[in-house]
């Protein structure tokens, strides 16, 4: 089945130790999103790719970076994780949808839960 796969599902790191989370998709969608979801809070968009075009949200900290080497893969790099970065990180994909990309349904992965010690 076409899907969005995130690895690892659970990641434990130490304060300040870099972390990379990965996302792969078999849907051939050209848009990929990274959301941060903290406990009891709404998912918050960090950035998204429109094909290779990177779009950063204005309030996303510099500590968060992303790479998209090809259509199928996208990575989230946290350069120096702090205690406040502990969260579930959700990857999602969506098609361009012609003139109304907002009508597209996003397909989410199961998430990567990050714990910072």
């Amino acid at each position, binding site marked *: 089945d076409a899907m969005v796969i995130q690895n690892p599902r659970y990641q434990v790191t130490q304060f300040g130790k870099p972390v990379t989370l990965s996302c792969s998709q078999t849907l051939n969608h050209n848009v990929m999103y990274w959301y941060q979801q903290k406990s*009891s*809070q709404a*998912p918050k968009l960090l950035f998204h790719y429109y094909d290779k075009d990177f779009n950063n949200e204005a309030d996303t900290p510099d500590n968060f970076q992303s790479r998209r080497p090809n259509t199928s893969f996208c990575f989230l790099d946290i350069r120096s994780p702090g205690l406040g970065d502990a969260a579930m990180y959700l990857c999602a994909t969506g098609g361009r949808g012609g003139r109304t990309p907002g*009508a597209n349904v*996003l397909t*989410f992965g199961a998430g990567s839960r990050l714990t910072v010690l």
Partner: protein
Amino acid sequence: AQSVTQLDSQVPVFEEAPVELRCNYSSSVSVYLFWYVQYPNQGLQLLLKYLSGSTLVESINGFEAEFNKSQTSFHLRKPSVHISDTAEYFCAVSDPSYGKLTFGQGTILTVHP
């Protein structure tokens, strides 16, 4: 800018009772509206969406939501809930031009036997 407010953080109900999860939004442009459901330790899944046309939309598992433009609301309802409906429900709005979803804070629905 868009925002979504889910008025109830937790809703406990008994099995076979009706339920309503409330959602209000604000936006300076027309938006698309969605409800997503998240089961424990899983990603979000689409429950239903409103893009245009009939203001009442339905899902395959008995949920429905009605778009009310004058009240800027998109409340989710089900006439009779099951234990398996226990999950967290997120209301979201989408900018038609870019497809970025803005989520509400979520409502945890707990169905008791």
